């Protein structure tokens, strides 16, 4: 017993670079040797899916991409899945970006899904309006007069020359908003300046860190469901039946979480052993 307690105490003083190595290994190994753990959709993910599925065919959907390379692993898979769902149901997709990096990533997503997978036509089935700086002022601008904010799209084409922009002048002309958000500006700004004043329905996908900031809006009914980080993206991929990056990362995510929990438990066991010993002496 003493050997065990001494060992636990010794492990508590280990150089943290060994911990880094363990974390690196538990993430890499499942990527090479996947376990294929089944994914079950949570209620909030199911709610997003049901809301989008219930939209009448041909609805005008605004997808706002506010994420960058740093949060691509969490948000990009959900953007791809949502776009697949939207194009499968033949909706018209309009893409804006509140982050500059979001424009490149949105363009990549549209090229992959709309152009390559579905063979859709730019300007008739989907359009990339692009990035505009100004944070919440951009959201407000979209609400009041989209055409003053966006006179050209991301490719430099005038808005007046894009067929699917006909009849779209302000935020209320859209039937639904999906915000793929990694922080500020993002979901919260859309709720405050666009959705609450106009009652256009909205769903969102956020990074795991932002989930708790957004959950009160979901609970209050201001947002219809939320895709929470990479697990949320994996759940949506499972719902639409097209596994992607989100799904492939779940095995590594599961094992890493288990290892971190074990670290916490081990650390606390060591803490209690040390505390009892110091009380004793």
């Amino acid at each position: 017993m003493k050997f065990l307690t001494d060992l636990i105490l010794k492990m508590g003083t280990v150089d943290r670079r060994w911990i880094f190595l363990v974390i690196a290994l538990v993430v890499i190994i499942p990527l090479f040797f996947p376990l294929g753990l089944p994914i079950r959709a949570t209620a909030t993910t199911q709610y997003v899916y049901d809301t989008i599925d219930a939209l009448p065919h041909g609805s005008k959907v605004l997808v706002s991409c506010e994420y960058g390379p740093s949060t691509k692993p969490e948000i990009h898979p959900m953007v791809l899945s949502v776009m697949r769902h939207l194009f499968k149901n033949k909706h018209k997709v309009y893409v804006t970006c509140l982050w500059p990096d979001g424009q490149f990533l949105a363009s990549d997503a549209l090229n992959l899904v709309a152009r390559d997978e579905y063979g859709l036509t730019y300007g008739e089935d989907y359009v990339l309006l692009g990035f505009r700086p100004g944070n919440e002022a951009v959201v407000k601008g979209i609400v009041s007069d989209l055409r003053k904010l966006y006179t050209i799209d991301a490719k430099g084409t005038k808005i007046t020359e894009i067929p699917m922009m006909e009849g779209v002048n302000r935020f209320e002309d859209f039937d639904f908003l999906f915000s793929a958000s990694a922080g500020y500006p993002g979901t919260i700004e859309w709720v405050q300046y666009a959705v609450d004043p106009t009652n256009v329905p909205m769903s969102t996908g956020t990074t795991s860190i932002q989930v708790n900031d957004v959950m009160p809006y979901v609970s209050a009914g201001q947002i219809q469901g939320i895709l929470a980080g990479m697990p949320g993206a994996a759940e949506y991929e499972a719902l639409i039946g097209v596994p992607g990056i989100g799904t492939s990362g779940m095995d590594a995510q599961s094992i890493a979480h288990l290892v971190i929990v074990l670290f916490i438990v081990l650390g606390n066991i060591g803490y209690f052993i040390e505390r009892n010993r110091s009380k004793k002496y």
Partner: protein
Amino acid sequence: MFGEIFGAWVAVFLTFAIFSFLYKDNPFYKIAEHIFVGVSAGYWTSMFFWTQIQPNLFGRLWPSTHYSDGIWYGVYDLFGIFSSSIFPEGGIDKGHELHLSYLIPFALGIMMLLSLFKKLNWFARWGIAYTVGMAAGLRAYGFLNSNVILQIKGTIIPLLDPDLPFFSLLGDSHFNNLVILVGTVTGLLYFFFSKEQTGNFGKVTRVGIYFLMISFGASFGFAVMGRISLLIGRFTDLITYNDASYHHATIWVLVIMVAILGYSTFTDKGNSETDVS
């Protein structure tokens, strides 16, 4: 194709350079960090200029629809001699009309840039004041409406609805609605610091603290989840770049970097290079 392969090697090098910080602070990390700072600043500058300043500011001051031989467009043509990409011939065609009122934000913007000089430091205050004023006006309404009033509305939920069960783990129920009401009210009461938190009031605020701790614990769990997801993303890219089409960039860069860092650690015995731990 060469651009892609070269790019992959650059990406892998920069990735491992940043990761090398986990071993210890070293020149690879410092180089990558400084490159990141420089490239980010240049990237943002270019992006903001071409998506906002050129089309929306210059495009409203010198729109092609009002091009003429007057003094105003004479100034434009002069700028065009220096940069025909920013000021193309015949005016800027972005679908705008002429709005000379946009000279105001242009002037405020130039004042912001002139504040780089110490004596003109205060120039930036006018532009900053405009953004602060506008942000204050927007947020006062936005936060009050969405974060306070509508949240209060969301908290006032049925406690005696005969259609709801008393307890349900996954759906709405009386117990769950009571948890939300009690948790929100006691949590808010905890933040009321004008009254000493003792006696019965202290007991109520203690309940509030428990709800806040559960929320913080959930936030911690989500934070860990988010960070691991980002790490998975990086490793996925590194595995992609290890492919034969990229000439196994990952493994080569890793081996070379480990060899150099290992050698430097071996020869660096007496040196007090800053150590991470």
